[in-house]
């Protein structure tokens, strides 16, 4: 346990002391939150488009922010692998599970506080724009965003383990773009329907946004929250197992 704690603390400090992590994980999502609120104010009410209204937007931006946590997870792992740092650590009594939990744990904490900040900003915007935003719903949403955070972090761990410093961020960019669009953060697939909705539903990102959004509105019905939330938990578990297994086998290969 002390090994996991030590490695987690090291990873947390490494990321929190990198100014870029604040720009990508915090500043950029907050800027998007403001920009999309401005866009929302420019959309005529008759259009009936509510995807950028703060009660819908806040959860979407929280998920959007998590995709950058994925990017920084991948960057941390690839950086450790490209230098001799992991080689040194492999020669210590640390096991592969110590490494994987040590990478995932601080990212969950970072992601948690990121969601808190995004929801605080959203609440301020809701007061300014006179939109009703439920505090209890936001608190519950922050908690239900944890499986989604784990899923994205495990994506980062997987890419960081399998690819190098150049290709891993590229792959993360693809996931960021896919989740932004097909995760219905900046696009209302439910209103569009058809093939587009089918594609969105085939990917896990849609369910992350859907469950978080429903939670903010205290809508816990089966189709809008329970089923999407179970899908997100299942994806988080699958990716958690997959990324840990891949890290373990890569570590074994590095030591062969």
């Amino acid at each position, binding site marked *: 346990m*002390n*090994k996991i*704690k*030590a*490695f987690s*603390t*090291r990873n947390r*400090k*490494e990321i929190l*002391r*990198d100014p870029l992590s604040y720009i990508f994980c915090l500043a950029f999502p907050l800027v998007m939150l403001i920009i999309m609120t401005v866009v929302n104010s420019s959309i005529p009410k008759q259009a009936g488009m509510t995807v950028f209204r703060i009660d819908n937007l806040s959860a979407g931006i929280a998920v959007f922010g998590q995709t950058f946590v994925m990017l920084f997870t991948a960057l941390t792992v690839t950086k450790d692998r490209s*230098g*001799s*740092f992991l*080689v*040194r*650590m*492999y*020669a*210590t*009594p*640390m096991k592969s599970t110590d490494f994987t939990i040590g990478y995932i744990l601080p990212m969950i904490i970072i992601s948690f506080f990121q969601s808190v900040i995004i929801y605080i900003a959203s609440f301020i915007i809701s007061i300014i724009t006179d939109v009703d935003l439920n505090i209890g719903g936001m608190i519950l949403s922050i908690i239900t965003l944890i499986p989604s955070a784990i899923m994205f972090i495990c994506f980062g761990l997987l890419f960081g383990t399998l690819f190098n410093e150049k290709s891993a961020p590229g792959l993360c960019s693809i996931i960021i773009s896919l989740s932004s669009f097909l995760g219905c953060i900046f696009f209302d697939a439910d209103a569009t329907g058809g093939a587009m909705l089918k594609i969105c539903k085939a990917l896990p990102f849609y369910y992350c946004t859907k469950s978080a959004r429903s939670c903010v509105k205290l809508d816990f019905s089966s189709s809008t929250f329970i089923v999407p939330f179970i899908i997100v938990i299942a994806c988080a578990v699958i990716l958690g197992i997959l990324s840990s297994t891949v890290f373990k086998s890569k570590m074994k290969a590095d*030591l*062969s």
Partner: protein
Amino acid sequence: MNAIETKDLTKKYKTKTAVDALNLTVNEGELFSLLGVNGAGKTTTIRMLSCLSTPTSGEAYVNGKSCKDEKDEIKKIIGISPQDTAVADNLTVRENLDFMASVYYTDKAVINEKVEDIIRIFNLSEVENQKAKTLSGGWKRKLSIAMALISEPKVLFLDEPTLGLDVLARRELWHAIESLKGKMTIILTTHYMEEAEHLSDRIAIMISGKIKACGTVADLEELSGKKGLEEAFVAIAERGMSEDE
């Protein structure tokens, strides 16, 4: 008990044999250098002895424990300072040491004591609150070795510890390494003759994955019939390479 013992230790990568049937014995408390040109198999040997690479064949023992079957036990008693300075860039010197100590110890008081001790021994106090990424090459190497020593290992592996350092930083690091002599077994790889001569109790000359000669500087001079380690090394290396051809 020997600190290191290898029996026909071999490492092959597809068609290349990096280490070829290495037979080596290092006494407890000895500072033993593996001297050779680039690609001689020095780092591969250290990787196998520190359980970072699995031998293709042969046996290796560290303090009587098998590198194949008792890896976890070996990892508790060794320290390694890799060729590249493996430090956490955004952590301060003190935090880097604290991190490594926390991997081995649970008691916070013990961890603090170990960190204080190593800062004092390696004169790191003037940079203890500086982030590792802002340190000069010499300080980084010092920190890297200090991190390897925090667990008080019985066997310390130093892979080219002074590579790329200026002459003053190298001399300072030599003093630090010299201060450890006798307290633990140290296996050092280098291709600097003066470094091997200055620091080592015994030197093994590695050429193409094989040990061509092993002994004190005087032994190597006698074996080669040349004066000075550099001349002895060149003579032994040339002879070894012609034998391989």
